[in-house]
């Protein structure tokens, strides 16, 4: 159905006049997200500021047959919040940003979906507790977006990802009815585990209106280390060795030689540009002594596996310095060329050397610049292609290279995406990773919850 003046008036009555954006210039600023994809300008942008208005907005949009794309901060890298063509509307949840409860006794919090991740983490920390999921975008991303994409982060290996912290939620279904699932208790077996289903749903099953999130006590001590390698296989053996020693670092990050060179060129921080790879390792825990012992063991493993150098940070300042290389990885790559295509292929951690070798081979084949960094502990790599999207021919080569990388990742028993999501970018690949039956099953499920296929229809499964 088309967006008529009468319909606009109805939306205005629900969310308030100023919260229905109809001007071309306003709508154009909701046509994109952080994925390098063609923008689609929405027909309307609706900004509910109360729970009640959110439900009514969903209902009216759905009843009117308008394709709906929910948007938090629009930082996802898969096109999951790019509006649908043909009168698609955006429902923006960033103004639903109240932290409703932080319960220190029962270790949970209740929030609205628009709360920014870092603001939440800080509020929780101020109460002496810890919310571990820390996507690189946490200073901007919303918790709703995190849940809808099951966002990961640097701490994934030890602390898990967003879905591991979702205890329950309230969702508006396609009729604008409020659905509740999960609870404030650690144990809960009533009903289906719908919160799990909703984690990673990419706005295709319903609209979150409230989230119950698990909190944990913070670690009391931590140690950070940096190890250099002349051979990426040795770095990989180190990762295996650390896990085999029954140590689970909270972060175990990896930069390849290309990335190190880009960071060094950009920051002149004195990084080892000859190194084939560096590992950045942090261990944490509840006791200073235990953490120290773990750190010593990690250093031992690094040496045994043939690292050329390993350093442990002596104080907070040195720790910050060690992490600077990782923090600068994306900025350094992003500054090198106009367009940055940040990929997300993930393989079992033992296959990282094969994956990195394949990425570099593919980049050479397509004459492209690439740097690979990522989460060595969980095999989640970010091969990052550098290009200029205005150069159509070059960009076609990037697309071909990315396709080939997916093939390799699947061949290594990996997955298309570890944390960035499927969205529009990778929907066509879903069948290759799974099979036809999986797609059909998912679509049946989806049709039951979204009979008119209006929730982010072009995303996730085609």
């Amino acid at each position, binding site marked *: 159905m088309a967006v008529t003046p009468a319909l606009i008036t109805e939306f205005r009555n629900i969310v308030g006049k100023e919260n229905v954006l109809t001007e071309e*210039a306003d709508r154009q*600023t909701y046509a*994109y*997200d952080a994925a390098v994809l063609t923008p689609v300008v929405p027909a309307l942008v609706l900004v509910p500021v109360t729970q009640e208005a959110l439900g009514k907005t969903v209902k009216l949009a759905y009843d009117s047959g308008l394709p709906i794309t929910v948007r938090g901060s629009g930082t996802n890298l898969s096109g999951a919040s790019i509006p649908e063509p043909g009168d698609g509307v955006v429902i923006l949840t*960033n103004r639903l940003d109240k932290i409703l409860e932080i319960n220190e006794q029962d270790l949970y919090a209740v929030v609205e979906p628009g709360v920014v991740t870092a603001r939440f983490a800080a509020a929780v920390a101020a109460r002496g507790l810890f919310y571990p999921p820390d996507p690189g975008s946490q200073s901007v991303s919303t918790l709703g977006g995190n849940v809808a994409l099951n966002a990961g982060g640097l701490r994934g290996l030890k602390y898990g990802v967003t879905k591991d912290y979702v205890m329950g939620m309230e969702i508006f279904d396609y009729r604008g009815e409020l659905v509740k699932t999960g609870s404030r208790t650690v144990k809960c077996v009533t009903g289906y585990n719908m919160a799990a289903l909703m984690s990673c749903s990419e706005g295709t099953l319903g609209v979150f209106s409230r989230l119950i999130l698990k909190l944990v006590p913070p670690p009391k001590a931590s140690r950070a280390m940096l190890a250099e390698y002349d051979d990426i296989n040795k770095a990989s053996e180190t990762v295996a060795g650390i896990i085999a020693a029954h140590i689970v670092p909270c972060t175990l990050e990896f930069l390849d030689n290309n990335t190190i060179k880009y960071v060094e060129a950009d920051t002149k921080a004195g990084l080892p540009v000859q190194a084939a790879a560096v590992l950045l390792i942090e261990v944490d825990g509840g006791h200073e002594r235990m953490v120290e012992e773990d750190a010593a063991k990690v250093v031992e493993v690094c040496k045994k596996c043939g690292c050329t150098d390993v350093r442990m940070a002596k104080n907070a300042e040195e720790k910050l310095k060690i992490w600077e290389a990782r923090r600068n990885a994306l900025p350094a790559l*992003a500054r090198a060329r106009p367009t*940055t295509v940040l990929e997300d292929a993930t393989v079992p951690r033992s296959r990282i050397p094969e994956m990195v070798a394949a990425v570099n081979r593919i980049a050479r084949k397509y004459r492209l610049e690439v740097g690979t960094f990522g989460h060595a502990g969980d095999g989640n790599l970010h091969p990052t292609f550098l290009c200029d999207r205005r150069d159509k021919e070059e960009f076609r080569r990037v697309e071909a290279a990315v396709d080939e990388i997916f093939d390799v990742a699947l061949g290594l028993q990996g997955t298309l995406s570890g944390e960035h999501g499927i969205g529009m970018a990778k929907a066509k690949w879903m069948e290759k990773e799974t099979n036809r039956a999986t797609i059909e099953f998912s679509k049946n499920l989806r049709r039951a919850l979204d009979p008119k296929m209006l929730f982010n229809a072009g995303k996730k499964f085609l």
Partner: protein
Amino acid sequence: MPDTATESGTRNVKRLASMLLELDDLLIACMRCGFCLSTCPVYGATMREGDVTRGKIALLENLAKHMISDAQSVNDKLNRCLLCGSCQAICPSGVKIMDIFLRARAIVTGYLGLSPLKKLLFRGVLARPKLFNSLLGLSSALQGLFIKKTGGMETYCAPLLQSFIGNRHFPPLAKKPFHSRAPSLNIPAEAGKPGVAFFPGCVSDNIFPAVAEASLKVLQKHGVGVFMPSGLSCCGIPALASGDRPDYDRMLRNNLKCLRGASFQYLLTPCGTCTATIREFWPMLADDYSPAEKEQIRELHEKCMDISAFVIDVLKVELPAASNGGPVVTYHDSCHLKKSLGVAAQPRSILKSLPGFSFAEMPEADRCCGSGGSFTLRHYDLSTDIGQRKRDNIVSVKANIVAAGCPACMMQMMDALSRNNDKIKVRHVMELYADTL
């Protein structure tokens, strides 16, 4: 408003688009990561994508590619920006955002024509310092007639001006501006001490002459030679922000003329905004200047420095150890000082050393206060919302005094505090330091 794009037809839209295409290389660097959403004060107040850099860059791209025909609405969005530089400071992709905004404003405004009010302000007044000063002198004499005192502070609410500037609690113009007391200066340096040129800046000159005087006292107490020519104009940022390149160029050239030939090692200002303009914007927009002018701009870029940075980094003044107890001083990081110039530690060391005061760090000390020249005039409600967050942060540490290194921020914070009836003083770092000398 003069003709808009729609009325002037497609030919003009095309011309605008081709000028904008020149910006393309700068615009393409934005990777749409959205990190600017986390620091932009305007976005923080409205939560609208069109108010933040990522949205503005998308619109400029669309304008350049003829994907949007309504240049006026893009211009309106561009103007909802304080040019505070917060976004540029955190942009992982290194997008030259200030460069983009200033060029785009110049292009779009040149195209749409200045509003009559701006024309009056910039063409006629700011560019001719003599006229500017006498006009302000006149209004300073007149304002007592129609401005009534409110609140506990030395700020006034102007019912007559209200329709134009909202319900603003602004400080009155000084009875005697700094330049009428000190039209020009040429104080020799003590042996072994550096000689500097002093650039007071419009706001210190006309609204806070005490800031300029405190700065001079500090310099003299430390034996620094001070040169200040007469006839300096505004640093040009208000004109630049309005996209008025012709008047900006006139002011810059006048300043170059006043400073030409004089010998000094540093150019000091007590205003973060002036320092950032001289150091960053002057060289950035010097494409059309003569080689000699470019060279002078480059020299001034190297010599220009914030005064508190000068006290700490150049004079290496030995400060007494931090004292405890006494009234609480907190510090607001002016965006231009911290984000453009990296000046953050120096003013804090000065404040921490003040005898008889205790220093408290406020939350979000480096979040923009919402002051932005004509932004404040045009988007007063928005500016007030942004100021309120700053005010809440100041109050949260139970401050008695809030210090800053930029008179424009001082005005904004006075306004925010006064409208909440807070009895918190706003002072320049140099004023507090000068009191101890």
